[in-house]
């Protein structure tokens, strides 16, 4: 048999095996699927019939409406997971109203919105300004090209948000990967695999890649709350416990300017140790939080630490 025929047969076989493999695993995590399957099997015929009808009706909806329902569901799950449970005596709907009311109150505080202001409009306006600032910051720091920035800015608002979230996810994962790499290096782990091969991706990154952008931001907000910020600088900050607790609260509630103000003296010291010019340090510490992280990531990757000596910083001074 000729080599091309063998290769074609091999490819067909792999394709067939692939279909078998794909068919074996549902899109959902198998353990979670099993839990739901048991619930389904425990239902009587009437309940199952009702769900079949709901599924048929759901599939008949326009795609935008189905997407909106899925987003609501994802947000609902996050709210239930992250907010303190209310008293057991209330119904699920009552508990939900309490959680969402608190969520809206925090948003109003963040926006400094008047009590009777239309929060929906304020949020849309703020989102647009933040997304545009995000794209401009990325272009200025070289993370995206000017052409890409122009393309994204020209998109209709909803599409711009969707694509910006994807860019944000990519950027956040890269920042976290830098932090993990710096941590591994500091712990004495080898820089690469055997014979200089690529290091396998950490399990934390693999798990995060599978999540949607909002989930990734949520998870990394928790990581920032522990570390103060992401990137190589996180490992270099040695903050007292009380300050860390304040930072965590500020990060979780979105008061990022406070985070910058509190971190500034420590960051200035870290940068000075690495020979960064005072003017660059000053301009870096004036940046908004997200941009500050980007700049620090670039500066610390470019600058090796100064050799240890009498000028080394005494940790007790931090």
């Amino acid at each position, binding site marked *: *048999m000729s080599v091309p025929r063998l290769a074609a047969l091999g490819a067909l*076989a792999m394709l067939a095996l692939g279909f*078998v493999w794909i068919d074996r695993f549902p899109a959902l995590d198998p353990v979670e699927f099993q839990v739901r399957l048991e619930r389904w099997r425990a239902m009587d015929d009437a309940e199952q019939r009702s769900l079949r009808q709901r599924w048929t009706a759901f599939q008949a909806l326009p795609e935008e409406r189905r997407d909106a329902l899925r987003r*609501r569901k994802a947000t609902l799950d996050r709210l239930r997971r992250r907010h303190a449970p209310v008293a057991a005596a209330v119904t*699920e709907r009552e508990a939900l109203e309490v959680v969402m009311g608190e969520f809206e109150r925090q948003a109003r505080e963040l926006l400094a919105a008047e009590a009777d202001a239309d929060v929906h409009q304020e949020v*849309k306006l703020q*989102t647009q*300004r933040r997304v545009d600032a995000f794209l401009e910051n990325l272009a200025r720091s070289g993370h995206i090209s000017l052409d890409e920035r122009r393309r994204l800015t020209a998109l209709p608002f909803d599409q711009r948000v969707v694509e910006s979230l994807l860019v944000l996810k990519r950027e956040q994962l890269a920042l976290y990967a830098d932090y993990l790499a710096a941590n591994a290096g500091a712990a004495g782990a080898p820089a690469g695999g055997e014979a200089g091969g690529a290091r396998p991706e950490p399990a934390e990154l693999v798990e995060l890649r599978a999540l949607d952008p909002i989930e990734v931001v949520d998870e990394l907000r928790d990581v920032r709350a522990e570390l103060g910020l992401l990137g190589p600088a996180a490992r270099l900050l040695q903050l007292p416990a009380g300050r860390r607790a304040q930072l965590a609260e500020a990060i979780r509630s979105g008061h*990022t300017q406070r985070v910058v103000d509190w971190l500034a003296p420590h960051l200035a010291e870290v940068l000075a140790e690495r020979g960064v010019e005072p003017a660059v340090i000053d301009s870096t510490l004036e940046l908004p939080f997200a941009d*500050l992280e980007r700049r620090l990531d670039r500066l610390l990757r470019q600058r090796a630490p100064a050799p240890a000596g009498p000028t080394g910083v005494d940790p007790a001074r931090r």
Partner: protein
Amino acid sequence: MTESRNTEPRLAEYEQLRLMEYLDGRLAPVEAAAVERWLAGDPAARRLADEHRRTWELLGELPEELQAPSEAGGSDAFRHTTLERVRRDLRRRPAAARRSLALLAAALLVVVTLFALQEEPAPWARLSAEERDIVQNLDLLESLDLLDDYGRQLDLAVDIEIMRAFDGELAEGAR
């Protein structure tokens, strides 16, 4: 055509074609006789024919009794036997390919069967495609009423989450 001592015999392209057609048995008897007369009188052409015969010997087992047409006592016998050898060789090749294909298919079947039998059947294997979709989306379907009743608040929550995702892109004073 002048031939060089150190190169193989060279014929004009037309002559080579004629020789090949003769060796393939595709010439009419009158034309074949003309080629045989030519081979008898042209050492270069005869040398080339010998080269082709040696090549066919490598492809199949050409018995010793098969020799140049003049020694064998007839070009017909040489041509017939050579072509038969070539035909038998071509018939063997597809059969060999079919055997290889069958062996490979059998091996793949064994691998896939062992793979499929290795583990217990998956729990979703007995569900219809619709049931599988319903089970995957069970939480969503059970929450549809809630998602509709609290739609406005949840949409606001979705928007707030998106807004918060871009925390820190603007200095707080610039908001």
